[in-house]
């Protein structure tokens, strides 16, 4: 069980711990007032990383060596010297994904950004390099912005069997995998379906607005996608996908996958794309335990009237036990479950809008 959860919010980073009994409460705050777009706790050395989106002053990255008591600014991914696609040379707009490299690569970090660059650090964030193998891939020109002006990389999965295998989810640009540490890339996504394109392009893998890509840690070839207009499952890597029909709504941003059971996954459905709030104002979680054949819609402990909480793509997480879940919303709601989602309990805090929750 993880006894620590970080919530990256519009106005700071919040650390939660269970206090007495089972109630989770704020144990520490960092960067109060500043938007924190992503947080990473590196399981290899215990370092914490926080990505700040300072608006006027740009995106910054900070590292803590003491569990969040003190922070120091590191380098941030930079597009300095990267040529323009069109008239406008790219610059960093958002650090949208931060992941640790493999257990055999101490110090290696990956960052996904808007615009759609993937960056690698080999020195714990002190310097970053744009992964040219992806940036220079001519197919990247077919990506487009989904919700933001530019496309972005929001999901980075390092294969636990081989640190050189990296899978990405891109909004909007489908799912990609490198087997050589980023030098070359394969576009996956056969079977993904886009309802927002001309019909003849509906199954074009590069047109797919993958909202979130997640995998089962124990069976890394078993993956799930919450997509702009559907839920999809793969059981043999990122190549081929099966569309799943969830109850309530197929729209949503987040998916979390059980770390040991590849057929178990959780979703936070919402009214589809042009509205984006819980169906009927009732906040629920969809759970499948049989690979998507059936779902349960879980609501115990979640607000069931006048709830307009949207759960963003990084707003749902499961801990290594597979039993403890956390879910954070755009209206600052934060709920925990200790039993795989059967029952939820909200924290007694009125938080800023939540961008990401992560157990550590």
């Amino acid at each position, binding site marked *: 069980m993880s006894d620590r959860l970080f919530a990256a919010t519009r106005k700071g980073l919040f650390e939660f711990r269970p206090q007495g009994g089972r109630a989770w409460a704020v144990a520490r705050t960092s960067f109060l007032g500043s938007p924190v777009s992503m947080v990473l706790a590196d399981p290899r050395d215990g370092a914490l990383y926080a990505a700040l989106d300072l*608006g006027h002053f*740009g995106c*910054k990255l900070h590292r803590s060596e003491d569990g969040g008591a003190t922070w120091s600014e590191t380098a941030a991914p930079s597009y*300095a010297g990267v040529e323009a696609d069109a008239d406008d040379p790219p610059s960093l707009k958002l650090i949208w994904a931060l992941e640790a490299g493999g257990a055999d690569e101490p110090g290696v970090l990956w960052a996904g950004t808007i615009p759609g660059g993937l960056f690698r650090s080999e020195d714990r964030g002190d310097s970053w390099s744009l992964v040219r193998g992806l940036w220079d891939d001519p197919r990247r020109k077919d990506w487009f912005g989904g919700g933001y002006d530019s496309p972005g990389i929001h999901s980075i999965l390092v294969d636990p069997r081989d640190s050189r295998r990296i899978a990405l989810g891109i909004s909007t640009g489908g799912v990609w995998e490198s087997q050589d540490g980023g030098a070359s890339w394969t576009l996956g996504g056969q079977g993904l379906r886009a309802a927002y394109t001309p019909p003849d392009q509906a199954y074009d893998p590069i047109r797919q607005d993958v909202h979130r890509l997640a995998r089962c840690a124990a069976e890394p070839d078993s993956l799930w996608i919450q997509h702009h207009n559907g839920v999809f499952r793969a059981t043999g890597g990122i190549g081929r996908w099966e569309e799943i029909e969830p109850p309530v709504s197929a729209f949503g941003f987040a998916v979390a996958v059980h770390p040991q059971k590849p057929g178990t996954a959780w979703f936070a459905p919402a009214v589809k794309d042009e509205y984006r709030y819980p169906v009927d104002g009732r906040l629920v979680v969809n759970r499948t335990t049989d690979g998507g054949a059936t779902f349960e819609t879980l609501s115990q402990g979640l607000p069931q009237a006048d709830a307009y909480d949207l759960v963003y793509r990084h707003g749902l997480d499961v801990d290594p036990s597979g039993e403890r879940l956390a879910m954070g919303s755009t209206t600052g709601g934060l709920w925990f479950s200790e039993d795989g989602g059967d029952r939820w309990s909200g924290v007694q805090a009125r938080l800023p809008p939540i961008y990401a929750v992560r157990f550590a």
Partner: protein
Amino acid sequence: MASIVFTPHLRAVGPLRPAAYAGATLAEILDAMTADYPRLKDYVLDDQGRLRKHIAIFVDGAMVAREIALTQPLQASSDVYVFQALSGG
């Protein structure tokens, strides 16, 4: 030397009080300040070296268009203000 003042929002990375630095342009002054304030430039300029969108530059009482703010010649007696637009919630 020109006198340069930064918005107090940058107090964590820049000077707290008006500072004097030599430089024929704002770009040169920012370069000269890097030795004392290594993080400052990245807060004022983006990763392509452009003035960030919501930074406003005033020289001797007049706001300077962003396109020329980094390269406009300064006088040795110039007063330069690096401020920010107000936005957000």
